């Protein structure tokens, strides 16, 4: 993960703070602050706390929800030894979702970092599935911070104005988002992603990547499921040993020489049984890392689908143009190459007049001009998309390899620690037994 503790520091271009807020907001149509045009300001971001609020929801019912405190502070000040109070504001999960949806629509070629899960999934029986459970809230806090840090360290996303406002402006942020008009695009995007269509000349690289994203999604969800079951079973093994503690204690009461050894061995068995709680809590951290990439797989797939959609639109526009050109030719030369109702009606009701034909030709010419523009635009759009998407894919791939390798190393280290603890406990117990 890019950041695990709230003290984790990352830097981000905060944009030009010399511009007044009004001036920034007046750049409605321009949601991107151009790179390099403003003096670099670094910012430290953290999601420091979580708290509960009460409020009325959309159907006017009182509900309790959790809010998260986002703190930002210029990193220069920290480096210089000053400790200014950070800017802080509270946001709830749904606002994070809104931000992410905005980013998805605005930067469709970017593999947008995912949010921590909305509802607790892959829980094993001792883990709470309750969204209000303090452990869940804490893990979510960490996940949200990780999300912000990932966005802040992305070369393109970090420059986004809406993102900046999200971090800096508690009220009025939503207006900024909605003013970008992303929601209209969101709807059509959603439609496009869910539509079934076939691309005639698919880009092999994107097809492979889509397949990979499916595999990644499938394997990581399988891994999370099995891991949860493993955790459940391991919990059982450890906890049953606690019963030894009790029975050794009871037994020691009727023994003379053996009593002390039994009693103290029993204590070690109790310690062994209770050690599993911490062990499994730490393992949840590993599960969270896997979950992040499960959701990342979805984001990756979305980019591939977007490409398919663009490709499809280009093909459609090209086909449409070809058809229109063909129609023009037919009209101009009076020949009918393919069966059409026009041809039939002409035969049945007689030829059109010269005037009628000329009007139709005019309309077609206009349409063809438009169509050629469209094809040109779509071609450019496609090429741009492919270029940008490919850059981000490469970046994502490297990040994924790095992060997951680190996750595996940490998992191995965790297991080593568990083994060492186990050896210690049983060595202690053995010593007690040998003194029986």
């Amino acid at each position, binding site marked *: 993960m890019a950041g695990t503790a709230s003290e984790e520091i990352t830097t981000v271009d905060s944009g030009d703070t010399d511009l007044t807020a009004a001036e920034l907001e007046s750049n409605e149509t321009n949601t991107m602050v151009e790179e390099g045009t403003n003096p670099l300001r670094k910012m430290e971001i953290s999601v420091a706390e979580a708290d509960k609020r009460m409020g009325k929801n959309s159907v006017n019912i009182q509900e309790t929800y959790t809010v998260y405190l986002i703190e930002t502070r210029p990193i220069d000040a920290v480096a210089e030894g000053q400790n200014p109070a950070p800017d802080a504001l509270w946001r709830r999960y749904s606002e994070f979702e809104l931000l992410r949806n905005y980013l998805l629509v605005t930067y469709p070629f970017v593999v947008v970092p995912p949010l921590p899960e909305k509802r607790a999934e892959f829980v094993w029986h001792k883990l709470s599935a309750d969204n209000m459970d303090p452990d869940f809230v804490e893990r979510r806090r960490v996940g949200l911070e990780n999300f912000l840090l990932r966005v802040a360290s992305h070369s393109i996303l970090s420059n986004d104005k809406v993102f900046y406002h999200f971090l800096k402006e508690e009220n009025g942020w939503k207006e900024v988002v909605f003013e970008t008009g992303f929601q209209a695009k969101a709807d059509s995007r959603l439609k496009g992603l869910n539509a079934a269509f076939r691309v005639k000349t698919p880009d092999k690289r994107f097809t492979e990547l889509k397949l*990979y994203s499916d*595999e990644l999604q499938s394997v990581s969800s399988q891994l999370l499921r099995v891991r949860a079951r493993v955790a459940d079973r*391991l919990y059982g093994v450890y906890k*049953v040993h606690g019963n030894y503690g009790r*029975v050794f204690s009871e037994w020691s009461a*009727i023994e003379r020489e053996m009593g002390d050894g039994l009693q103290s061995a029993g204590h070690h068995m109790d310690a062994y049984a209770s050690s599993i709680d911490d062990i499994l809590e730490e393992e949840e951290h590993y599960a969270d890392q896997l979950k992040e990439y499960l959701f990342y797989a979805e984001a990756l797939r979305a980019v591939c689908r977007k490409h398919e959609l663009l490709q499809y639109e280009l093909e459609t526009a090209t086909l449409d143009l070809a058809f229109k050109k063909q129609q023009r030719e037919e009209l101009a030369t009076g020949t009918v190459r393919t069966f059409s109702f026009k041809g039939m009606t002409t035969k049945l009701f007689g030829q059109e007049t010269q005037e009628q034909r000329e009007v139709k030709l005019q309309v077609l010419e206009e349409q063809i001009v438009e169509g050629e523009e469209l094809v040109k635009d779509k071609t450019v759009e496609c090429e741009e998309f492919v270029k940008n998407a490919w850059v981000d894919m490469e970046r994502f791939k490297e990040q994924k390899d790095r992060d997951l*390798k680190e996750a595996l190393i940490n998992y191995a280290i965790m*297991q080593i620690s568990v083994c060492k603890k186990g050896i210690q406990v049983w060595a202690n*117990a053995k010593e007690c037994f040998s003194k029986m």
Partner: protein
Amino acid sequence: MSAGTPKSLPSSGQKSIQDISHPLSAEDSVLTPSPDIGNTTSSIGEKDLSLPNGTPVDTSSPGSSSSLLNRLQLDDDLDGETRDLFVTVDDPKKHVSTMETYITYRVSTKTTRTEFDLPEYSARRRYQDFDWLRNKLEESQPTHLIPPLPEKFVMKGVVDRFSEEFVETRRKALDKFLKRVADHPVLSFNEHFNVFLSAKDLNAYKRQGLALLTKMGESVKYVTGGYKLRGRPVEFAAMGEYLDVFTQKLGTIDRIAQRIIKEQSEYLVELREYGPVYSGWASSEGELQEPLEGVSGCVANCSSALEELTEDMSEDFLPVLREYVLYIESMKSVLKKRDQVQAEYEAKLEATAFRKEERTAVPTDVEKCQDRVECFNADLKADWDRWQNNKRQDFRQLLTGMADKNTQYYEKCLAAWESIIPLLQEKQDAKTDTN
């Protein structure tokens, strides 16, 4: 949970009745020692164990010489006296005849006692023979605690009587039984025990014994039931109470151990599914392929280690616990017998009080009863102390064994995980170097 199909022992195969030499028959000279023992140099510590007549002993099955050594040194000599009788049970073999199939065990004896004609013996015995011995000991030494035998009948239909695991568990229990008898200052000198260890044809002796039994009957048999006990001496009452609580606790420990084995088995099932998921993932990755395969391999190693632990606990831990429950049952029945003897004495004593003409001299049969009570109490006390000591040793060994097995399990897992750290990290470092 056992791993795969239970292994069967090599058997003597199907032969016609005439061809099969009965393993316990006198003709089976290969296994019984010849009188020519002066040349033998075989001792307990030597690698190549051979019989006095020079025939090398078959050490292909669990009865190898090093484990033989271990078993002989199993019980510490508590009294400090030099051990002069060593017994071992090993080398189980399956015998198949048209009538039945059964297992025999080799019972090896080494002794300097004059009660034995020879210093060494080797005989083949089957469970029936051990059972016979135990009954004989109970009959002839009713004031003593006789060690328990492993269960005669296998209750669960699932267990294979001829599987290697079952036979090995039984062998260990039979070995323990004989060792406990051999260590007992009174029981080890019992005539039946002697015959059991040394006789070429035990069955002949058994038949002989049956005839005698009817004659011997009354004097050794004690009256059971019928007499009501007035007051139990405090120490024996305390023994009874102790045994009741101890039985309870052993039962609890047995249940806990079984539960742990069950939980571990279920954990193992999940682990066996968990490891391969990493391999499956590895096949769709590039850079991550090796690390993921590494983790998969680790999980597989841990699974094997866990399986071993579970098997060991099943085979070594549970049977010993159960054996002690049987031991306690034996002890309780001995206590009951003692109560009966005391009750009989008290009743007879009371009866004589009413016969005025014999008030001057205590009748001989009442005296005999009193003697019996006193002997019984003394024997029982001595046995109780011995039993407590053995129990302490046995449980110390059992529990430290459990701790050892668990430690070994964790050590194996630790080694597995530690071995992949360099694999995971080296690539990481290489990557950062090229950046």
